[in-house]
């Protein structure tokens, strides 16, 4: 097998693998509907709609959750 054939097979296999990967991802998105944290993907649209700094995050970072459980007020200091 010469280099050109190898390239051709490699190209075909990679294209097929990536296409399968993409379709598997689409299947995953629409069958699970929620991500690993249990948040519905569609809720993430609210990251743009409710984007004031004092708005509650759709899914807060663990660091931010500490500030939201009552010990520190959101919007005052964050480090």
């Amino acid at each position: 097998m010469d280099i050109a054939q190898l390239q051709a097979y490699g190209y075909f296999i990679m294209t097929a693998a990536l296409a399968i990967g993409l379709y598997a991802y689409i299947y995953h998105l629409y069958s699970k509907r929620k991500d690993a944290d249990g948040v519905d993907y569609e809720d993430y649209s609210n990251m743009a709609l409710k984007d004031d700094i004092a708005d509650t995050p759709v899914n807060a970072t663990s660091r931010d959750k500490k500030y939201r459980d009552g010990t520190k007020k959101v919007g005052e200091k964050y480090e």
Partner: protein
Amino acid sequence: MNKNGPLEYDYSVSKLFIMNALFVGTIGMLVGVILAWEMAYPEFNTFLGEDLAEYTNFSRLRPLHTDSVIYGFTLSAVWASWYYLGQRVLKVSMAESKILMFIGKLHFWLYFSASAVIVLSLLMGITTSKEYAEFEWPLDLAITVVWTLWGASIAGLVGFRREKALYISIWYFIATFLAVAMLHLFNNMEIPTMFVTSPAGETMIGAWWHSVSMYAGTNDALVQWWFGHNAVAFVLTTPIIAMVYYFLPKESGQAIYSYKLSLLSFWGLMFVYIWAGGHHMLYSTVPDWMQTMGSVFSVILILPSWGSAINMLLTMKGEWQQVASSPLIKFMVLGSTFYMFSTLEGPIQAIKSVNAIAHFTDWIIGHVHDGALGWVGFMVIAAIYHMAPRIFRREIYSKSLMNMQFWIQTLGVVLYFTSMWIAGITQGMMWRAHDEFGNLAYSFIDTVTVLHPYYTIRAVGGTLYLIGFVMFVYNIYKTTSAREVEEHELQNASPMGA
């Protein structure tokens, strides 16, 4: 920031980039209009007299036009949007970190200084002759630093965020950063000629800033168009999608039609776009399989592109009356429509049999401009109109001026691309026409004569777009002293004066 007061977003870096976008946009488009009139009336090449002809002729001004609208106007608006919406969707303020603020300001001022040197160097005729990458090696290094600073800003804001997930716009910004970094580095692999000649240039081979590409012949062309097309992909497409995914939902108050569709369109686009550049090299000396790959991937590109475009348009589902009532929504909806339109036109041009007629003709220029003026230009204008009231805490000065601008610019875009369609296909057909013995039916000058009216129409179209842009700049300028607004007026639809 008031230490004891509530935390607020800080738009100072965003404001600097907006000012630059307005300034460079005006200059870049003015140069474009001058070029269009030069094409229609060649005597206009010496409009400042024979002595200054070197600085006013088409070939000297052309890279100044392309580079200033792509890297000056568009990138400034992209960065203004990043420093504005990056904070908002990550729910973290620039004011919370002195380092991030320093990086942001350094990013702007280094970019501004490098741009000034680039303008001078292009005017002086210093160029590597690589399209959209004309800058010589010292400037390439400066660009690398500027780009790295943006990367640091992204990493900083993302690392500091309160939202765990990254909003779809952030994914598009990250893709822009990574792809352009790779494109810039690989396309600009070059050897300064001073390493093989004398820096003083006694050998007459060149000045200290001069360099030659590491690639030669066909390889150079291939790398150049891998870069060239992906510059369209990752400077004029992905960051603009990032902008529309934020500004359209925010301004209309509507959630994205399908967040899942936005995610899969993103990965589809990433997978496909990077392979499409080969379509610039159809019927050239690059390997045939590479040309076919370029064609095939260009056609497949319709799917992820339309996935995003349909998602943008369907976001307005049930709220179409906003298109009629708000000129700002008009700009975004027409921009998304032009995105659909040019992402259908591009793949058609990349089909080999169509390309046999389209290649090297004005149809390509028409395609570039329905994308650049209709999609990129309109989205940038909409983004700045949305940001201005929030940054200045004032209403947009005049809604009627905005409406007038919209219709003048739309007419300009339509005149531009329709004239170039006719000109391009006429050119393509005339170049290949021959008699029964194979003799060419026309000489080159025959095409020039036939195309003259269309070149004039194009120049008129460009002039209309520029007039609209000046109205836009005036409107934003007047916004800085318009009626002050309350916080609640800024939630969704931007406040506008009559």
